[in-house]
């Protein structure tokens, strides 16, 4: 009896195994099905254009340096399509949460009903680094961005949770001026 109890307690404390599923793809597919839209994947632009470093620089008040791990960026853009969210925010929120496995921690969810803008940020352990998934849905466009950040950069961005999604998305969708 004691052995069974000990065993069950041990299993209760064992961290769950990281599910090796393409959650980024699942989220993009879910958005397509939910809103009946199609995404445009821009991997090259994403690789060349990630500038989250500028965000960190703004927070720190220093010079820009890149922070996103090279090749870690996944980006899907939905442009000039109809995202009718009226009365469906709750349903969409549930669908987003259902599309991701439990290794993702919901960090920030913001919703502006008037402007029909929804932002969802999830975090996940990626070894010693962290995956950050940002989903932004607006009236006529949406973006899904996944980046890998070092703990230091995550900690700096975490200080402004409301600005984090916007900053990561803006930087991921902007090409370097150099």
């Amino acid at each position, binding site marked *: 009896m004691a052995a069974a109890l*000990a065993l069950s307690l041990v299993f*209760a404390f064992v961290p769950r195994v990281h599910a090796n599923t393409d959650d980024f793809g699942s989220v993009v597919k879910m958005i397509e099905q939910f809103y009946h839209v199609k995404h445009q994947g821009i991997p090259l632009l994403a690789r060349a254009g990630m500038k989250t470093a500028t965000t960190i620089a703004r927070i720190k008040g220093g010079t820009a340096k890149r922070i996103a791990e090279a090749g870690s960026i996944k980006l899907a853009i939905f442009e000039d399509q109809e995202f009718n969210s009226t009365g469906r*925010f*709750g349903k969409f929120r549930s669908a987003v949460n259902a599309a991701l496995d439990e290794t993702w921690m919901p960090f920030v969810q913001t919703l*502006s009903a008037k402007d029909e803008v929804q932002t969802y940020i999830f975090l996940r352990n990626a070894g010693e680094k962290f995956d950050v998934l940002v989903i932004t849905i607006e009236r006529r466009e949406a973006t899904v961005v996944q980046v890998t950040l*070092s*703990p230091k950069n995550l900690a700096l961005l*975490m200080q402004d949770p409301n600005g984090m999604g916007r900053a990561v998305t803006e930087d991921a969708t902007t090409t370097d001026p150099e």
Partner: protein
Amino acid sequence: MKSLSKRKSRLPLVALLLIFAATLTAKAQGARIQLSNLDHLAARASETVDVNIDERLVQIAWRALSSNDVDEAKVKKIVSGLKGIYVKSFEFENPGEFTPADVELVRSQLRGPAWSRLVNVTSKKDGSVEVYMMLVGDQISGLAVLSVEDKELTVVNIIGPVDLEKLSKLEGQFGVPELGIESKPKTKN
């Protein structure tokens, strides 16, 4: 054979230790209030913010921030020992879009014996701001702020050793909104 029986005899001890660890964790989480019961307000709200920073994330911030950088060291000190920061905020277009019953969903959780409302607290904000503290022995194990305005409802729940000074330093960071909380000077009887 002997080692097997030894191992068997240790199992109840392991079980006890695990139960003890689970109890400690549960105690630390005791200051966590249930905020998901306000989720229905999101359908009526014009703006909704939901921030969840659990112990793992607090630890990441604490470990990652440098003690040698002046700004980072300040933040590191603020989050030191915290076990979670949870914020739920709703803004509405018109007054009356949330009811006293909605507020009661939060307030009722703060009537437990472990929670005390701080009476010497005011806010620069309009409306009412109630600050509650959970004490376990003489240790603060959490804090909750309930801010109610005509068109705004905000709940902040911080788990861990946090006093008003730390709360004021957290305002504007980690999703904690500007609450304008001030301690009233204590009056002599």
